[in-house]
């Protein structure tokens, strides 16, 4: 069971890594927004899998916080990434 769960975690991480590579090599901000989302799902899943496999204490709690904060980061991206709310504050001259 342990080896199987570790292999599954590895598989999920590999899938996430490939997607991340694609997300970061492309152009456009909308693609970058996907990064936090990707790790919010894939990272949490991998964590649950290898946390269960190695019986790491507190892994489930970390996954819970990670899911919450990944959502927070993604929303921060959307809020800051849209240019129309930018202030006229930074006027060099």
């Amino acid at each position, binding site marked *: 069971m342990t080896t199987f769960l570790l292999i599954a975690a590895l598989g999920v991480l590999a899938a996430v890594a490939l997607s*991340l590579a694609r997300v970061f090599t492309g152009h456009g901000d909308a693609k970058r927004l996907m990064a936090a989302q990707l790790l919010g799902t894939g990272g949490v899943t991998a964590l649950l899998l290898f946390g269960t496999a190695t019986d790491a*204490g507190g892994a489930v709690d970390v996954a819970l916080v990670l899911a919450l904060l990944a959502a927070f980061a993604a929303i921060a991206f959307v809020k800051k990434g849209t240019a129309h709310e930018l202030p006229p504050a930074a006027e060099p001259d």
Partner: protein
Amino acid sequence: MALVLDAGMALCLLALALFALTARASYSAVAGFVAYGLLVALAWVRLAAADVALTEAAIGSGLTGALLLGAAARLRASESTTVAWPSAARRAAAALLSTLVALGLAAVVLWLPQPAPTLAHEAAAGLPSTGLGNPVTGVLMAFRGVDTFLEKVVLVLAMVGVWSLAADERWGGRPGLRHEADPNGVLAFFARLVIPLGLVIGLYVFWVGADHPGGAFAGGTVVASMWLLAMMTRLADTPPIERRALRLALVVGPALFLLVGLAGLAFGGGFLAYPEAYAKPIILAIEVAMTLTVAVTMALLLAGPPLRSADGQ
């Protein structure tokens, strides 16, 4: 198999770090950094440090990411497309220095003393006297309480530093810019659903910190991120910094810590010496105050210096 997992994660982390440093646009770089932070939290679980993983997940990726992101967005207008890099000679010198430092550290890692020195036995021996079950909380709150107290002071000083950057006429006003958000939009809906949930998670993380991974830092940071979410979706505005209750919340953690420390000096064996019978309730009281202080300070550090007057203009 576990080693393959570790090696894969290490490679991903290195790639993300390199991307975050080399990406042309700062916005992309910060996106890479957030992904990096989320992945570092996984690495901490692999190192059997769930307490640190919780803190990293909350601070490293979430709050630091949002902070850098806000800065990148505001600087984007003034950011030129090309930058003048230092000359090749300087870059080579910097690369040489960095390589030497990295190699030196790698050598240290490879030749760490065997058997590894550890203070775990001492921590385990002292833990019963604190009434706690989580050794990391024990170290933070009791054995090395002075460090934690001084760190709270650092937070307050950073807050003073950030606020002192306000323009004179804005002093006492509301930090940050006003966020625009549709009160009936999908974002506001999401925030209404998630904020209560997130607050419960934050308090849970704080509460289990006595006996399991968690604690005031991670819990307080989660609470802070939920407050920030409310600010971003305009469910709540940032409070004017002249408000007295706000300033009290900023200092209540270190103040209580200091009081208990001085009381220890008067009644016990020294600064921050807890009487053994009451150790647990005292630590809990300090932790409650600290969670509040951490939550308020983290959120306001991220919100930045006041940019609007108290009536919101």
